[in-house]
């Protein structure tokens, strides 16, 4: 635990040092923050979930929550999971920088394949793109140099690129312990963790602003209506954090899918409510580009859509809950 805390403190320091307003603004115009990425890589953080260094996926998701607090504009979630997958494939992590995508069209016989991946974070700026395919899954690495990359961005200005590849990819092992679905679930959880951090930050920014800003001669925080809005916000932030932790706590268990479904849905709901209240409290100031609030609120709006909207996960969770029949609804919720 204390080793984990040490790691989180290190990460917090790195992120706080580097992720200032200027860096976030630059990243959102498409400038990859190489210096930050180098520091992060040197710290070993992207390897946290590879068996080699004894780290765990649990720590990786805790790290992402801290990253969310700072809107860290690098593909850290992708690198963490890609390296984890390479580890599962018994393939040593590379010195190269790597991102991760989901193959949305794939064909190929023999060695040569044609694959395309949409919305890959920062594909344009890294060395390799990882994805998984098949059953049992093969872990594949593409050299970006061999790919067609079309830059794109999500609503938060985060790089989300389209990647096409035709050729013989680098197959770096396979795994029986996971499926293509598992990777989707892990990535959904990564967005929960990132959102939980960003939500905390929105609450802090809003409370600070309310304490500081005066209107009609007294601080906003003294108005009962504002207090109640911030209370509602705190409820949502707390629920999101708890739902995320609960899912992280079930990694590797049979409950995991249900917990991820619950978390992604619950956190996604919180994201909408919190973003709205945060802007409501901040007024015109929070609507400016100059204020840092929007780096967090726009990411919330983007991340809640990535790897399954609320509706998607609610349908899955609902069908699973219903499957056992009405009298087993409670047992489903409790997990036993």
């Amino acid at each position: 635990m204390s080793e984990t805390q040490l790691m989180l403190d290190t990460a917090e320091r790195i992120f706080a040092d580097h992720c200032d307003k200027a860096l976030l603004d630059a990243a959102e115009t498409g400038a990859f923050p190489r210096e930050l990425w180098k520091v992060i890589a040197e710290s070993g953080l992207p390897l946290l979930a590879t068996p080699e260094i004894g780290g765990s996926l649990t720590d990786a998701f805790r790290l992402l929550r801290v990253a969310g607090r700072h809107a860290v504009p690098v593909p850290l979630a992708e690198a963490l999971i890609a390296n984890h997958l390479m580890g599962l494939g018994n393939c040593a992590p590379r010195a190269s920088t790597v991102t991760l995508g989901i193959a949305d069209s794939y064909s190929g016989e023999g060695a040569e394949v044609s694959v395309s991946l949409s919305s890959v974070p920062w594909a344009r700026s890294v060395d390799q793109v990882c994805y998984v395919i098949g059953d049992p899954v093969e872990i594949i690495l593409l050299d970006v140099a061999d790919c067609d990359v079309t830059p794109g961005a999500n609503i938060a200005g985060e790089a989300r690129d389209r990647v096409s590849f035709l050729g013989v990819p680098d197959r770096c092992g396979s795994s029986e312990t996971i499926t293509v679905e598992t990777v989707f679930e892990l990535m959904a959880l990564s967005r929960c963790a990132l959102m939980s951090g960003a939500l905390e930050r929105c609450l802090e920014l809003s409370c600070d602003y309310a304490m500081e800003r005066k209107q009609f001669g007294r601080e906003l925080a003294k108005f009962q209506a504002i207090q109640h809005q911030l209370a509602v916000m705190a409820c949502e932030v707390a629920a999101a954090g708890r739902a995320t932790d609960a899912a992280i706590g079930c990694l590797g268990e049979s409950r995991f899918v249900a917990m991820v479904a619950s978390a992604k849905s619950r956190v996604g709901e919180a994201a909408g409510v919190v973003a709205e209240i945060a802007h409501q409290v901040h007024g015109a100031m929070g609507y400016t580009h100059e204020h840092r609030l929007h780096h967090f609120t726009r990411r919330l709006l983007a991340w809640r859509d990535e790897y399954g909207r609320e509706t998607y996960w609610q349908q899955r969770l609902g069908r699973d809950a219903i499957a056992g029949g009405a009298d087993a609804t409670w047992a489903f919720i409790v997990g036993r």
Partner: protein
Amino acid sequence: MQALKFDDIALPPEAEALRGEVRAFIERAMPQDTLPDSDFNQGHDPAFSKALAEQGWIGMTWPTRYGGGGRTFFERYVVTEELLAAGAPVSAHWIADRQSGPLLLRYGTEAQRERFVPAIARGECFFSIGMSEPDSGSDLASVRTRAERRGEGYVVNGTKVWTTDAQRNHFIIALVRTSQTSENRHAGLSQLIIDLKGPGVTVRPIRNLAGDEDFNEVVFENCFVGADMLVGSEGNGWEQVTSELGYERSGPERFLSAFRVLVEFVRAVGPDPDDHVAAVVGRLVSHLMTLRAMSISVAGMLQQGQNPALEAALVKALGNDFEKSVPEILRVAAPHLEEGSRFRATLAQTLLHAPSFTLRGGTREILRGVIARGLGLR
């Protein structure tokens, strides 16, 4: 801003071990003639409470020398949530088990503990709460019921109101004024145990809008109460009540009150509903799973001796809004509302009781105020 801290605590194996037993008991002991209701205020059934006590499931966390079970909060949590989820009738022993027992163990005299606590644990002694008064609303410090020293005790005059089950229970622990109002509105209050069937006490049931009589008005007219029935020390009532309210903060009863509506909804829609119905169920399930995890965190933090006051208020505020929303959400999501179906009957019952969900232990306004204070805003 104070950080919101919910430790990632799961129920330990010894608590989980109990779950099967509780379910088997419910299967056996559940009355068949009423609609199950997850609202802890519904269903006053002394026989059920007695049977529960025989399992050792009342006063579970209390010391064995007072008839308690010496078990953990987690074990109690499992029993409580299983009972509520099944819609079992828990109202008779509820307050005694959750509030009065712990209060007496903490502040009561040895004689009080010996007299009341084992009886509660046996399911033979039921308590009501005597806090609210006709003009007090959420403002407990405005209590006007007076207790004047007279010989070996007190003479009590005044009126308590909204006292759940006072017409059925044995005792009330009343918050009374033992000295005049001073600058400090919280001073001069004390707690007395009063026999609800004794002389000088008149209990008048108050019908609620659903036609049931759960609430009561309790009038004390020159009611003599022995000094040995003072709980804690004279004038310390405010502090005691405040800590007592802590017990009712964030258990599963805070978000499960409407749970049976969900169960009957799932029954009504059958095994293969459309995407939207599935999503509605999934959404409510995700809220329940999350609230439950938050609530278990608070239980665990209490077990570790922490004081998660802000976290408890968050659970309570969220849980309250959630349980009120459940019948409204399921009503419009239901593909049909068949006359006479269990879903429709459960829905109607819960809709009528829903206004009472927020009356318990602080309105939404009060809770949000507590949270705002926790955030450092006031």
